[in-house]
């Protein structure tokens, strides 16, 4: 039904476009000067067809379910049901009307289902009638306007500009969506667990929250030692630190080499090859870390008499470091190449060797940009998920031994939310609280890093 209506409206839009254009030609044939190109007359009509249709469709989508629900439940209003029971009755009615209801069918619900179906069909047909009549009215109004040869290009372009502007709001909407999806659950979480316990507690054991009998009231004291995030934060930064220990030397040195030493030909091939490392999906790195690097480290450790866990922080962090190499190398390469040649020439003129120039002149000059690129790398390491989920442990140990297993913010979010989630459960809310802290930390890192890089670019441009 909706689809047929939609196709009909699209066809109507096209016809009105052709009508508008034809009108323009007839105006032209009477030797009057057109105010715009003929197709603008067509666009004008088509827009007058599309906007009302869009508005009515969205109004219907918002209000139809609520109104139908109100009408159905008005039959039950004075029988003393609770809100939850009413919702259940409504769900049963809907399921029965779709023929998916399994359970005892009471005559009440059967009657409601019939009423539901008839209401739906009334709603659908009235929607069709209203949409079509309003479209015809608005197109007729617009047709009158173009018949009097009034301006059409300006309104059409204004409309297009409005569409472009709306699209550019998508980025803001996404950010708002992220904040909204996180903030409510986070606030609910901190209603049960004090912020202090979350930030400074040293025991993370969310599985404990699972044991609760759902019929009992929430008892905050039960969670007093469950959601202490210190081991998680420590693990996150520890693994990121290991990753950066791998990524910074290799990434920075290869960036310097590519920018200062490599011939054009080497650069042409080496740069994209290194960047392949950035294009490999993280789940593949995770598999590699879990299947190859972890057991390999364990074997080496055992042969040296060390007790190495197969899921060590070292394996996860090391592989993560490999993943981050190309981010640091490309960014620092860009930064170094944008250092003005005059600085190099000055240094060479004083008799400095190439490496001395790099170390004493170019590196200090490029330092802000390099720091920015490293910060972006850190933010990526903190937000990385799959490598940690697959290669590092899932139990939150508070340790600084790289050979033991630790857990991170991202890994805990996945562990908690994999499978079915019950919203309103402190355990689920804990995942959102972790997500919030992850978002805030990476946001700060990104803003600082982007600002540093931008400032640096402005300096030399």
């Amino acid at each position, binding site marked *: 039904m909706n689809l047929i209506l939609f196709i009909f409206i699209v066809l109507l839009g096209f016809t009105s476009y052709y009508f508008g254009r034809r009108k323009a030609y007839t105006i032209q044939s009477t030797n009057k000067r057109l105010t715009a190109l003929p197709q603008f007359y067509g666009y004008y009509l088509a827009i007058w067809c599309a906007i009302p249709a869009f508005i009515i469709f969205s109004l219907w989508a918002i209000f139809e379910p609520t109104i139908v629900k109100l009408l159905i439940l008005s039959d039950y209003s004075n029988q003393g049901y609770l809100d939850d029971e009413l919702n259940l009755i409504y769900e049963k009615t809907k399921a029965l009307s779709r023929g998916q209801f399994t359970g005892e069918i009471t005559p009440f619900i059967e009657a409601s289902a019939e009423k539901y179906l008839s209401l739906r069909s009334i709603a659908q047909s009235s929607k069709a009638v209203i949409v079509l009549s309003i479209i015809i009215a608005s197109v007729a109004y617009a047709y009158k306007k173009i018949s009097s040869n009034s301006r059409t290009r300006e309104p059409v372009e204004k409309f297009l500009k409005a569409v472009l502007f709306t*699209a550019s709001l998508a980025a803001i909407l996404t950010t708002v*969506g992220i904040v*909204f999806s*996180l903030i409510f659950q986070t606030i609910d979480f901190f209603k049960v667990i004090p912020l202090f316990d979350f930030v400074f507690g040293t025991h993370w054991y969310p599985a404990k929250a699972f044991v609760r009998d759902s019929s009992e009231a929430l008892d905050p004291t039960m969670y007093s030692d469950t959601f202490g995030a210190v081991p998680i934060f420590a693990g996150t930064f520890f693994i990121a630190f290991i990753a950066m220990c791998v990524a910074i030397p290799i990434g920075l040195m290869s960036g310097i080499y590519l920018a200062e030493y490599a011939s054009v030909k080497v650069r042409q091939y080496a740069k994209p090859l290194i960047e392949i490392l950035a294009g490999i999906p993280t789940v*593949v790195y995770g598999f590699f870390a879990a299947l190859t690097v972890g057991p390999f480290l364990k074997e080496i450790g055992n042969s040296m008499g060390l007790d190495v866990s197969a899921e060590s922080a070292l394996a996860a962090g090391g592989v993560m470091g490999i993943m981050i190499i190309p981010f640091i190398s490309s960014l620092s390469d860009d930064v170094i190449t944008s250092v003005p040649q005059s600085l190099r020439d000055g240094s060479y003129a004083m008799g400095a060797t190439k*490496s001395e120039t790099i170390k004493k002149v170019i590196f200090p000059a490029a330092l802000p940009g390099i720091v920015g690129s490293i910060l972006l790398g850190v933010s990526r390491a903190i937000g990385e998920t799959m490598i940690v989920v697959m290669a590092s442990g899932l139990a939150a140990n508070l340790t600084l031994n790289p050979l033991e297993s630790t857990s991170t913010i991202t890994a805990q979010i996945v562990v908690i939310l994999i499978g079915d989630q019950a919203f309103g459960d402190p355990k689920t809310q804990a995942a959102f609280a972790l997500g919030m802290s992850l*978002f805030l930390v990476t946001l700060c890192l*990104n803003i600082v890093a982007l600002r540093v890089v931008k400032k640096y670019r402005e300096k030399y441009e």
Partner: protein
Amino acid sequence: MNKNKEQLLNKRYKAEKRFRLYGQGAIFMAFLFLIIFIFKIFSTGYSAFQKTWLIVPVTFDAELMMLEQNPSKQDLKDADYYDIALKSMADLDPNANEDQENELKRMVSYFFEREIKRELLNDPSLIGKTKDVYLTASDDLDQVFKGNYPRDLPEDQRRVTDYQLKIFDQLVELGKVESKFNLSFFTYPDSREAELAGIASSFMGSIFSILVCLMIAFPVAVLAAIYLEEFAPKNRFTDFIEVNINNLAAVPSIVFGLLGLGILLAVFQLPRSTPLVGGITLSLMTLPTIIIACRASLKAVPPSIREAALAMGASKMQTTMHHTVPLSMPGTLSGTIIGLAQALGETAPLILIGMVAFVNTIPGSPLDPAASLPVQIYIWAESAERGFVEKVSACIMVLLGFLIIMNLFAQIIRHKFEKKWS
């Protein structure tokens, strides 16, 4: 004095050489990682494209199948194949006792009766006759045949018993074991049995998610980029949008998963585990990538083009839509493809919106529950069976293949169609 100077110079030259060496070493290390990586994946994965079959004589005994005289097509479909399947396996060793018969049964895949059924449905005249039927070997024997399974372990640490190995070796000697191209890896959906698991379901899930992602992200991103690059006034609000876009590009992907879970599933009540929700989530992620690429290529169109159009009396909107945007399309498209390639490899947000559910049907629309290729890699990598290890690597090879093709495509578009202004 002179000698001192020379020493100093030598020292400086040595330092120079060392520094250069560090640089070469760093690049070498990066390459080394890449090579180890690719070698490891290919060496464990290539064998998954072969599948081991046991050739077993099956007697289609009408009595055992509970078939009456002149059965119809429906009768054949409803017939009982389990008994003849069991009997044909037990007949491999006439002296087998009950336990050994059970072990014989476990030498082939879990659904071996279906393969026998298919054989008879293809040729109903087989009733009462005996025919050699190809049966999928169990994943453990498959691994044994490929040489991935350590035979020298003590028996209680193996999933293959000595007895099974003995019979299997006899079959190999008789030429009754064959290795063929594993077509079912591409045409079967996921399964709990490694020998029957394929990537068809997750592949379709990936395709649907990417299509949804493309249909949402591309138009919105291009329109947004046009506005920001060509029309937006320079003011605080525009700056704010720009800061937002740059930040979104660096937000961890798992946060987008939380967005999908908290808004799309919880508020809008969209169906869980579906490529529709996955695609929307991924589109929010790729949006900044495409916007940034599109803006860069709009910026690369020289102002003289715009000035020429404006001088001919075109409006600002006409200049943009007729000249600037078409000229920027190659760059935009290649940026879009790269963004989609990133989305194709994304795992964490899809796990959060429930695309890890076990799906053993091939999804037919974006509204059916599905997994995606990277999620399939994760699911298989977490399974304990040895047979899944090569499947994971093979799945990775398929995924990497797609990523390479997409990136090559992006390069080709960029080099073939992009105009060089100089």
